[in-house]
């Protein structure tokens, strides 16, 4: 009789995901007597999993969301941590037109789902009708 050697223990299995959003402020300079500062949203999704192997995926998007417009001739308050250096500022939103291809993919998925539901429902109704007809003949 042979004695099996004990297998080495496997490293622990793990998986994780992290969604992270941060906002960065980018100075765009002074133009036409106005100091412009942009707010950029940075969204990141990180997915990682592994055991003896490891796989990691990182998806990110940087999207400008607003522009702060402040008078350019004012001196910045060096002690202020508020946006615009503590001065009053106007905010102009940056609209992001939706990307056409993700919208296309969503619509095609909706049409495909609708067609599949229709065909499945029709198939079930037909099958029920046939089985009902057979029962009626038998009785």
């Amino acid at each position, binding site marked *: 009789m042979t004695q099996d050697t004990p297998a080495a223990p496997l490293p622990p299995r793990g998986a994780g995901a992290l969604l992270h959003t941060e906002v960065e402020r980018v100075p765009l300079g002074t133009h*036409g007597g106005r100091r412009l500062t942009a707010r950029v949203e940075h969204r990141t999704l990180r997915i990682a999993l592994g055991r003896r192997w490891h796989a990691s995926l990182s998806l990110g998007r940087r999207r400008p969301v607003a522009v702060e417009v402040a008078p350019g001739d004012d001196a910045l308050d060096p002690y202020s941590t508020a946006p615009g250096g503590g001065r009053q500022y106007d905010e*102009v939103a940056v609209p992001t037109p939706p990307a056409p291809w993700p919208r296309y993919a969503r619509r095609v998925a909706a*049409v495909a789902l609708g067609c599949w539901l229709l065909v499945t429902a029709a198939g079930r109704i037909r099958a029920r009708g046939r089985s009902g007809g057979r029962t009626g003949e038998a009785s």
Partner: protein
Amino acid sequence: MNTPTPEGALERVGSIPEHAGAAACFGEPVRAGDRTAIPVAEISYGIGFGWGGGTDNQSSGGGGGAGGGARSRAVAVIDVAPDGVRVVPIEDYTQIRLASIAFISTSTALVARSLLKLVRG
């Protein structure tokens, strides 16, 4: 001192887009008379990497790889004029039309296939 490992190198490569500055979303200001235009873009990226290894009675081995891509899409122009600052969105009508044509073709094919299935039972 830490010894560099392939895993560490791959992780560093994967984090490059995250360390790229947000200033990459803005182009060089273009002046025309008393107006200034600043192009604005949205940047998306995806990076994946993996590695693994294994051993059997005779040998052991391992390997890894990484891949990724990034894309930038113009979304707006900041228009700085003497009477104020406004943001003008940019619509890519060529892409919108192409996506519409693709949607109409795909949905027609899907509906026709479903109707055929319904008629044939």
